[in-house]
């Protein structure tokens, strides 16, 4: 006897060739699309610059978002300012729109905690211990629900991270408590060297929400329009008491895992070539060009403008004065405990001058 049925839906608006496969969602006019396009370019350029900085020794290990720009950018655009983002480490596209200057992101990967002291009072910093952000997001959502606010929490994770128990525990409590949270999975097909297929036997990552009793869906993660629309709906649902949603955004990691990685060791070249055919910028440009709201000269101007913006942030980053070594102590507690004050003195004596 069949006692329960489930289905997973897939959403796409913009095909890789730049044509629509269904009418534009209302609310997303050409101006909005131009803005998404601008942000994706800005992000991609920032990304390239960060990698260059790392190559010349001016930045530590850096996690690139190449090829995955549609997710962060569309997600960030769909969120309200008073929503809360609990990100992982490939969400600069969203963070940027929420008050996190690029120089803060550089500072973070540059080995300086002050990079997470950015212009957003409630958003979490980048999360490295994979999937812990998921459970934390449910706590933020619980606070919002307790205070009966109409706000949503967005938390992100890679498809590899969905194998962690924390991810599931978060889904489960979000379902059980009907929490206002949207779980976004950046399914870029690889978790460092472990492929999507090795990671889990699921047909889709979206169906993992079935284990928590709420809906999951797949979206073309290289389609900024689709990501935006599905995010908008999920956020609206969350804010209005409809509970959690899991959105699996299908994309591809066109970059190495981080600058410390060499994907050539494990990634088939053909796969990479194919992925370049469906990447998110080209298709949106094709669409906008067909709409006659974009052309080569606008592209050129945009690139110039992006470069200027990023130059500015890079300059700021490079000119930041080192933090006093005592910073490592002074923010551990509201007040550094009396009992530990001797250690502060030792640090002052031996910590050396701040490094840069």
């Amino acid at each position, binding site marked *: 006897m069949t006692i329960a049925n489930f289905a997973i839906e897939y959403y796409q608006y913009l095909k890789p060739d730049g044509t629509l496969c269904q009418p534009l969602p209302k609310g997303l006019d050409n101006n909005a699309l131009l803005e998404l396009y601008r942000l994706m370019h800005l992000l991609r350029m920032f990304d390239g610059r960060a990698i260059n900085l790392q190559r010349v020794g001016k930045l530590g290990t850096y996690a690139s978002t190449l090829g995955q720009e549609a997710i962060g950018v569309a997600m960030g655009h769909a969120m309200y300012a008073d929503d809360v983002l609990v990100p992982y480490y490939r969400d600069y596209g969203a963070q940027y729109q929420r008050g996190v200057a690029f120089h803060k992101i550089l500072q973070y990967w540059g080995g300086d905690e002050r990079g997470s*002291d950015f212009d957003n009072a409630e958003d979490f910093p980048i999360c490295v211990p994979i999937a812990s952000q998921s459970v934390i997001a449910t706590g933020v959502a619980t606070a919002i629900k307790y205070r009966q606010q109409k706000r949503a929490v967005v938390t992100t994770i890679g498809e590899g991270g969905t194998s962690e128990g924390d991810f599931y525990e978060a889904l489960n409590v979000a379902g059980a408590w009907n929490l206002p949270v949207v779980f976004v999975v950046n399914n870029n097909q690889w978790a460092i060297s472990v492929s999507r297929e090795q990671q889990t036997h699921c047909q889709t990552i979206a169906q993992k929400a079935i284990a928590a009793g709420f809906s999951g869906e797949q979206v073309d993660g290289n389609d900024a329009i689709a990501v935006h629309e599905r995010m908008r709906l999920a956020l609206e649902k969350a804010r209005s008491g409809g509970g959690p949603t899991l959105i699996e955004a299908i994309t591809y990691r066109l970059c190495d895992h981080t600058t410390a990685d060499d994907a050539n060791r494990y990634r088939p070249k053909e796969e990479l070539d194919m992925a370049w055919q469906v990447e998110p910028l080209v298709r949106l440009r094709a669409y906008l060009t067909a709409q006659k709201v974009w052309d080569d000269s606008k592209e050129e101007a945009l690139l110039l403008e992006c470069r200027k913006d990023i130059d500015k942030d890079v300059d700021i980053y490079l000119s930041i004065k080192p933090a006093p070594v005592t910073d490592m102590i002074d923010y551990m507690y509201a007040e550094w405990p009396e009992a530990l004050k001797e250690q502060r003195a030792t640090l002052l004596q031996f910590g050396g001058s701040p490094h840069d």
Partner: protein
Amino acid sequence: MTKITLVEAVTQALAYELAHDENVLVLGEDVGLNGGVFRATDGLQARFGANRVMDTPLAESMIAGLTIGMAAQGLRPVAEFQFMGFSYPGLDNILNHAARLRNRTRGRLHCPAVFRMPFGGGIHAPEHHSESTEALYAHIPGLQVVIPSSPARAYGLLLAAIRSPDPIIFLEPKRIYRLVKQEVPDNGVALPLEKAFVLREGSDVTLISWGASMHETQQAADTLAQMGVTAEVIDVASIKPLDTATLVNSVNKTGRCVIVHEAARSGGVGAEIAAQIGEKALFSLLAPIQRVTGYDTTMPYFKLENSYIPSVAQIIHAVNLTLEFS
């Protein structure tokens, strides 16, 4: 005023803060209608509602993460792990996030959360229910680890923990949950978090302990008194950070020191205390510091647990060793 037990003092402190600060919430497994398996949250859900006193799904890592998220939003969640032996799945979030949130955001966010858990043996509980792994938490920078050993200290320290802007691990010695009753005025007055408590002054030896072992330590002091040996008895209470000054001052006075804890010996908090006293009072020491501790074995099931838990006889023996040392 009626006298209350340690666990009742916990309930009283929780009720006080729930009543006075709407940001305070209680959460954990079975803390609601059931009032917790030790009844530490008895009646709280009935009184404050299920949105303030919340039964969670059975998932400790989630409980930890959830608590951190709530705290980052300015709530003051008090999470219960049902037993210390089941707290480890939460350790990752506590260590990697709760303990670091302020530091890694340079103060932009912080984590005013309390993680309560009953700990220790001696109640004939099943496997895994009798842990004393306070040293794990005490080693984690950014945490404070507090252990009450009387009803009054349970009340005052728990209030302080809830009001603290930083995360506190609050360990409740379940063996003495109901051992003694004390008058504990429900006046909302907190005790300081960073302080050791000198329970009894003495000049011959300093006895240092915390949690349930305070009981045997004080009994030993009684017996020693009859033998003409006056022991200074200190309840460390805050095992992280340590109130080293109070401990060192005492040893400087007595010249002898015995540290008692139920946890496994190697890498227990007693080691840190001994090391600090060695650093600061070496030449006051008339004899090597003695540690009377659990063994470097898993806490045995209850048939053998009394052989594991430090006994009064062991403490007295250790004191005698320090006295006889030549």
